[in-house]
């Protein structure tokens, strides 16, 4: 663009040279310097065309108005150029029109063309430039001299600034919107005017400015002088301008024509590698897939354990031989059995066979299948490491003292008292160990001697007997029988006189105790002592009616309290004989009460529901603890005479031994009967206990309890007594020890009551 401009300028200059014949102004302040600076003899001599001019004239573009040297320069060049002036005339003519229009558009200060007095040639003279600080300013002629400040500072003032002389420039009158509008209508130039901030008024744009706007709008170069289609300037390549001399004297390097040594080396490296076979061009990577073996185990083995080796298959035994001993050959039955079982269930995957010669042995048809199964085992079967036990199984059986060293205990059945083929559920042995009462389901209660089994007396009730129980007192003698909803207290016959009177006194005193304040639903009715006999009960209690007779009767050790358990809620009663008073200790019990038991020494009371055994303190009326035997249905329970241990039997064949001071959980759980447990009983004096079961057997245990808290109780099974027959799945209902003797009385569903002696 610069070149184009300069060209234009040079054209203009020439044009003006022709046109204006004005005298030259006086020389500028420092013409010599400029001339020295710019005057290039070579160029002047050489530059005999237009382009040369342009090059020389480049400078005016930069500081066009500040310099006056042009004149000098021109004048210097004039002599050289004069020759050519004629030639250029045609060009000038052509450009005249454009020049005219250009004049008006020119932003530059207009030069005057005068004829130099020295050369006699026309020359351009530019207006004088005052070399003060503002000489360059294009806004010289603006009247307002406030400078570049926010004009709203003058918003409230009547003037808009000051002129060069310090006089106020008054704010021009500005019309309202209507005026503006009218102006746009009236004044055709109003749309080409713009608001001048400095003067606070609209000023029409000059033609140049409008031209610039137009160019910008059209996307042209804003400079009007720019010619995008200028012909190329052939500085060195034009006709006759070819460079014949070299620019540099350096000789052409060898590398321009010799093949590269380094490239060759690199190529040769590859070539050599290919020749030696190190590089295989187009080598298929997978062609050589044969694994290469090397000493893989020569370097150090990694620390840490190796993965456990796979278990080896079992080595073949004699049976697998092609010619086994004859006894290994399967019999026809074995063969049939082997063929009948599924292949997975077979103990051996083959049948032993015998061939008389090796050449007769055929191929084994399952060979591949077995290999495959082995592999499946290797990668699909879960592996568990198990320690192989190398112990004798007999060593697992606990070593216990021999039963023969723990005598005496019952070993044989000494006698049998038949009950007319009716189930005998209830038996009781008198506290002196002489008599047994047994009650069966037909309502017969029999009294007989332990030693000979002779029946002394028989009572017959209307329905089945639920329980019989001797009173544990030794000074008196009577027993309780539970039938229907009654509890009858009966005095056995043939009592010695003092005992009889004492008993009668206890059961039917001359003066009845005063009736309790709040009468219970249990009715007490007695026969006067004088009329009493052993045939009928001397005292009867009628409980609230229920379908079943009370299933259990328990005496307190002192013989005054009797507890009865009947079916259903509120079936537990505690009767006091001396006061003829009955009370229900529990208003409500969780679950159905199976059994109750008095503690032998303390005022504690055990209540067994279906699953739990609860221990209450009757004196304080609190729950002491709940024992959880883990039995589904408790059938029987007994407390050790010391009162610290409790055994609980269940219908699910379990027997639990509780150490009451140790835990609420059983100390030992035994399961040895094959059917439900029916009854358990501790011997009052000997360290023995017995359990009976529906499998018809009675198991005798030695159970030694130590006073030392650190020693666990010793339980030794002693003897299994068999002799009761099982009827309709029912075996031995009840077992009772004879006090002071290691004898046992048992009652079974087969209607037999047996006595077992040591």
């Amino acid at each position, binding site marked *: 663009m610069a070149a184009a401009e300069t060209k234009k300028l040079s054209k203009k200059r020439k044009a003006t040279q022709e046109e204006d014949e004005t005298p030259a102004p006086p020389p500028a302040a420092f013409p010599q310097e400029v001339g020295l600076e710019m005057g290039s003899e070579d160029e002047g001599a050489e530059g005999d065309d237009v382009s040369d001019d342009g090059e020389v004239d480049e400078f005016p573009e930069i500081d066009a108005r500040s310099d006056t040297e042009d004149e000098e320069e021109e004048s210097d060049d004039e002599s050289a150029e004069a020759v050519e002036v004629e030639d250029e005339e045609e060009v000038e003519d052509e450009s005249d029109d454009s020049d005219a229009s250009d004049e008006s558009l020119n932003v530059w200060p207009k030069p005057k063309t005068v004829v130099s007095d020295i050369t006699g040639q026309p020359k351009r003279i530019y207006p004088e430039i005052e070399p003060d600080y503002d000489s360059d300013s294009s806004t010289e002629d603006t009247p307002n001299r406030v400078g570049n400040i926010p004009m709203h500072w003058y918003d409230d003032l009547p003037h808009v600034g000051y002129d060069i002389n310090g006089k106020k420039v008054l704010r021009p009158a500005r019309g309202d919107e209507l005026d503006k509008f009218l102006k746009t209508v009236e004044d055709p130039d109003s749309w080409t005017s713009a608001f001048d901030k400095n003067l606070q008024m609209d000023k029409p744009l000059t033609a140049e400015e409008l031209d610039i706007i137009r160019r910008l709008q059209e996307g042209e170069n804003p400079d009007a002088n720019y010619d995008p289609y200028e012909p190329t300037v052939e500085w060195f390549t034009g006709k006759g301008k070819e460079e014949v001399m070299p620019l540099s004297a350096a000789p052409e390097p060898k590398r321009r024509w010799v093949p590269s040594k380094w490239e060759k080396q690199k190529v040769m490296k590859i070539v050599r590698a290919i020749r030696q076979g190190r590089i295989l061009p187009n080598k*298929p*990577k*997978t*062609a050589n897939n044969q*694994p290469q*073996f090397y*000493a*893989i*185990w020569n370097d150090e*083995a990694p620390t*840490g354990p190796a*993965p456990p080796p*796979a278990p*080896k*298959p079992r*080595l*073949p*035994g*004699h049976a*697998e*031989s*092609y*010619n086994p*001993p*004859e*006894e290994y050959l399967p*019999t026809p039955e074995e063969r049939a059995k082997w063929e009948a079982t599924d292949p997975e269930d077979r103990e051996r995957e*083959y049948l032993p066979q015998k*061939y008389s*010669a*090796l*050449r007769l042995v*055929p*191929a*084994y048809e399952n*060979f*591949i*299948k*077995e290999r*495959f199964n*082995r*592999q499946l085992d*290797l*990668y*699909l079967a*879960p*592996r*568990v490491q198990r320690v192989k*036990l190398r112990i004798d*199984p007999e060593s*697992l059986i*606990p070593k*216990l003292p*021999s*039963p023969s060293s723990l005598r005496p205990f019952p070993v044989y059945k000494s006698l049998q008292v038949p009950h007319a083929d009716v189930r005998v559920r209830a038996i009781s042995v008198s506290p002196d160990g002489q008599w047994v009462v047994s009650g069966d389901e037909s309502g017969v209660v029999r009294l007989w001697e332990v030693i000979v089994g002779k029946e002394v007396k028989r009572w017959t009730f209307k329905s089945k007997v639920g329980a019989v129980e001797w009173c544990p007192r030794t000074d008196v003698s009577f027993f309780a029988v539970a039938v229907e909803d009654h509890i009858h207290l009966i005095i056995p016959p043939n009592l010695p006189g003092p005992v009889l009177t004492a008993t009668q006194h206890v059961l039917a005193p001359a003066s009845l105790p005063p009736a309790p304040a709040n009468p219970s639903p249990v009715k007490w009715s007695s026969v006067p002592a004088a009329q009493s006999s052993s045939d009928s009960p001397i005292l009867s209690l009628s409980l609230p009616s229920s379908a079943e007779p009370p299933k259990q009767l328990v005496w307190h050790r002192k013989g005054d309290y009797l507890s009865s358990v009947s079916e259903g809620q509120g079936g537990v009663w505690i009767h006091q004989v001396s006061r003829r008073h009955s009370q229900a200790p529990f208003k409500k019990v969780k679950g159905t009460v199976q059994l109750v038991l008095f503690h032998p020494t303390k005022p504690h009371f055990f209540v067994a529901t279906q699953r739990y055994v609860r221990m209450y303190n009757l004196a304080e009326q609190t729950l002491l603890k709940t024992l959880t035997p883990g039995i589904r249905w408790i059938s029987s329970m007994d407390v050790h005479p010391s009162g610290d241990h409790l055994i609980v039997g269940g219908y699910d064949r379990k027997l639990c031994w509780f150490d009451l001071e140790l835990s609420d959980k059983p100390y030992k759980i*035994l*399961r040895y009967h094959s059917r439900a447990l029916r009854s358990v009983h501790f011997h009052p004096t000997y360290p023995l206990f017995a359990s009976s079961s529906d499998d018809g057997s009675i198991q005798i245990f030695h159970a030694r309890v130590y006073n030392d808290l650190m020693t666990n109780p010793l339980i*030794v*099974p002693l003897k*299994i007594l068999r002799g009761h027959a099982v009827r309709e799945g029912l075996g031995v209902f009840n077992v009772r020890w004879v006090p002071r003797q290691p004898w046992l009385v048992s009652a079974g569903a087969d209607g037999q009551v047996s006595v077992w002696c040591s």
Partner: protein
Amino acid sequence: MGRLKQKGKAGAAKAYMTRSAAVKKLQCSLADFRRLCILKGIFPREPRNRKKANKGSSAPTNFYYAKDIAYLAHEPVLRKLREHKAFAKKLARALGRGEWSSAKSLEDNKPVYRLDHIIKERYPTFVDAVRDIDDALCMIFLFASLPSDSKVSPSLVENCARLAAEWQLYVMHTHSLRKVFLSIKGVYYQAEVFDQTVTWLVPYQFTQTIPTDVDVRVMLTFLELYQTLLGFVFFKLYTDAGLVYPPPLDTQKDDGAAGVGAFNLQEAKPNRPVVTSARSKVVEVDGKRISSKDVRQTIKSISASGSGDVDVAMPSVDADPANEDDEEFVEDNTEDPEDHAPAAPAYTTATLPTLKTLSTIPRSTSAKLFAPYTFWLSRETSRPIFEFIVRSFGGRIGWPATSGSGSPFDENDESITHVIIDRPLVQRQNESEEEKERRRRRKYVQPQWVVDCVNAGKILLEDLYAQGKTLPPHLSPFGDHAEAYDPTAGLVGVEEEEDEVEEMEQEGAEVSEEEGAARPAKSVLKAAAAAEDDAALHAAEVAAEAAGVDYGTFEKEAKKAQKKAKKAEAAAEEEAERDMNKMMMSNKQRKLYERMKYGQKKRAEERQTLEQKKRAIEKEKKRRIQSS
């Protein structure tokens, strides 16, 4: 208070992973997962509590250790498998577009995985690897005999056959075969390599067909691993034995069905200098102080030279069956007699008890069992089996051309001592004198003789195994479990017992013949034994009198019977006591006890049935002998 423990954040829930979870985590297909598991030796585990391991579900699943799976995730083989998947897609596309050249270049650059690192991981030491080659050998021998088809490529079969031959060559070379068992499944061999017993099963030479319910892909994956494993193991075994691995194959011989004879065992060259240097070191040592390092080195060098010497000294038939004799080895010895000086006396005369002789003594007897003999294989016997066995035990063996080429001698060779023959005896009519003479000089034995000799560790009498004879039973050299029935030892005891029983029976028969009232007498005695009190005894006495037994004999018998009864009673009581004591066992102990008892009972029953059968067979035999 500590942080609340959340369920499923620790313990079994984290330590185990189901198979489907593992497949998901590894982002591969189930088939790839299986492949990886086979190659890496990862197998499912049984958690203590399946529910805890499976987020409360009790569905039947396989569990893997989560750490095993995490370890699989970094497996280079897994990456290769993924690459292969991409490759398969690319190839399919190229083929679908008919871009044959790009398909070919793809095929050429197919991703291939290597298993070296897996071998090293699974078997950190060489002994580990040797311990675990049983299955590998079984598979290799099986596939070596399979016909090739679309699934089993011929190159695979060929490679398996090569590996099998290499293993047999090594075993023959080192004389490490110990036991052989001819079973109905195939031939079991047991060798001792690096103090590890290696047992493998080789099927009889029949064409096997792969059943349809067998997944060949699984077998091939295993085979891939086994081939690599055996390659490395054999490399180490061969180089340790001073041999070149792989042994070069003579293709001409191989085409002639020479079997193992087609391979040439070559001594590795660098073995010699080691021996000499070791010897020179020993010489140096004499004057110097010996550091522990020196000692170690010498030991190493001695053992190295020892192994080298031993195999040279043995009259083995390894190197080249076509032209090999013992002379070749003599030559070998004479080549550099100085190197092998200590070895020669060790073999020929055992005068100097050197370390080498000591190490060779225990096995020298059985290892070179057949060294003095030369065998000829009859046409119907299996050449690979007996060639392997005989050569492993130092014998020479030849075979007719119908069994393959490469026999070192022909049938007319004078040195043949035994002919292994497996056909019934046929009288030949037109036999020349020479042939008769030859027949007289040679011993004709059935194949079982060879195997029984090997298992017995000595040369058995040939008469029992002569041609056409009924063979004695062939027993497993591995034996059965400890309590099992022993067919050899059982013979004596059983016979005695049996005699007793028989005597008793006979006596009874006699008595019954003599006296018609013998039976009541017996019952009387029984009654006497059972009598508990005097009254019953008396009653029995009376009965005896009535039966006609005199009092003296009755008394004696009664006492005896009572004593017996008492003994039985005591035993029964003890038994009852023990039964009662069982009540006091805890549940766990009882279950364990019952399990153990069950096993014992089963084994005892097995044994009893076998003994009974044996007795019956013996009786039958005796009867037959008596009747004839």
